[in-house]
């Protein structure tokens, strides 16, 4: 499903964010990625859908050779991968509804199908009543939930979530986690970077700990703590 081999990412400013990571993630797995601030979690994740290109190493996602992908193939990789971005990345001029619909229109789905699915995912994240608002009119947590709704709208084979509960209260966080569990149960691979200790400790899944750009621990049913 997702294979990384000796992946290194050195940014233009000389910072080595990922320093030799090799990992296999099977179809249907649920993986937490944890680690201190600036450890390279987001970079690790961004390379999977080619927001960043590794400096060296191999990455394979749902059969695509990601670093070697031609420009015109990238959109098709990204359609297999739903992403909840750490900074949401909502289109500021579109309403909540339109933001989610856009990600579906890109696949040229029928308007009927789009309408139904958008309202469905909006009610899943509890924001059906805010469909007509612009992102700037939402609270931080609401924007985050729209980003989640958009990521799952196309029922992707892989769901990548970077800190999806960072702006949510514990109650809402749990609701979102249950949603992700359901999606995972339907066979979607989930990779989730998080700082939320209680979630990682209570909903046990594979935990990959990244420190200083390297995987320092990789436990099948691990807990959060990565310090000694």
């Amino acid at each position, binding site marked *: 499903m997702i294979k990384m081999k000796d992946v290194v990412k050195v940014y233009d400013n000389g910072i080595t964010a990922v320093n030799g990571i090799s990992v296999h993630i099977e179809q249907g797995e649920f993986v937490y990625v944890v680690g201190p601030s600036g450890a390279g979690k987001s970079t690790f994740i961004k390379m999977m*859908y080619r*927001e960043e290109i590794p400096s060296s190493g191999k990455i394979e996602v749902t059969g695509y050779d990601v670093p070697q992908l031609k*420009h*015109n193939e*990238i*959109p*098709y990789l*990204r*359609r297999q991968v739903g*992403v909840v*971005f750490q900074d949401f*990345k*909502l*289109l*500021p*001029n579109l309403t909540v509804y339109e933001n989610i619909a*856009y*990600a579906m*229109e*890109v*696949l*040229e789905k029928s*308007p009927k199908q789009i309408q139904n699915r958008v309202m469905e995912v909006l009610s899943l994240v509890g924001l059906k009543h805010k469909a007509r608002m612009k992102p700037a009119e939402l609270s931080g947590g609401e924007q985050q939930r729209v980003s989640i709704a*958009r990521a799952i709208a*196309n029922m992707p084979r892989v769901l990548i979530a970077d800190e999806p509960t960072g702006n949510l209260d514990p109650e809402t966080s749990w609701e979102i986690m249950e949603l992700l569990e359901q999606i995972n149960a339907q066979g979607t691979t989930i990779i989730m970077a998080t700082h939320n200790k209680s979630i990682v400790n209570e909903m046990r899944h594979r935990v990959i700990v990244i420190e200083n750009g390297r995987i320092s621990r990789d436990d099948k049913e691990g807990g959060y703590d990565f310090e000694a």
Partner: protein
Amino acid sequence: MTLKLRTLSKHISDSVRNIVRNSWMSFAAVSAVSITLLLVGGMLALLFNVNKFATDIEQDVSVRVYIDLTTDQEQRDELQAEIQKLETVESVDFSSRDEELENVISGYGDSFDLIDEDENPLYDVFVVSTKEPKDTKETAKQIDEMPYVARVSYGDAKADRVFKVTKGIRNVGGVIIGALIFTAIFLISNTIRITIYSRGTEIEIMKLVGATNWYIRWPFIIEGALIGLFGAIVPVLIVWIGYYGAYNNITPFLSGSIYSLLSPNPFLWELTALMVGMGVMIGSLGSALSIRRFLNV
């Protein structure tokens, strides 16, 4: 690049939505297009009329055929018929030596009052107009070889000077038009580029949620075309109103003279087509080109 009809209509509605939602940006872009096209349209209207004016002047350069003093009426008619037969000749007008003298007197001042009609030192003249100004010289030569012709002049010096001046005017006008069109292309596409650059993050997000380059590009191209189109409306209106105003005010003064303004009918339509065409073309092309740098993400 093959477009489903549904996708196309989606692109169009998306582009309209973008224009409306970015209203101040759209307004700034539309007004930049407007003012640029107004400048181009106004100057083109002026320059094409200057060109027309130059042509009118050139047309006015006629060949003067001085008829032998000994020629009688019949021979003169024969000569006139022969001249008329030349393909390059538009018209032949007779001017008697008495009329010529009057011309001289009124043209040069009345110092010539002193000359009696009996002392009139001038010839009878045929004034020959050619269809094309450029044929003047050749025609003059051909006529010179005909019988009963004392001498032919096409006001060599004057004509050459006129042609030189009109050529100069045309060259300067051509350079100005070229410069204007270049300026318009540059300014309009530059404005569109700036507005698109300020939407770089938006485009990146579109790419990140899986849109293909063409899916992103189309609404921007249509938006550019619409901005160009909307930007052309006001200048086209102003040019029509302004040109009709100028035309109606100036034409009475020119009546009777050899000069006339370009008739609005085909001219304004051509100008409109040019302005709208420029707006739409530069707008859409400018969009398509500016967006490139954001697409390879």
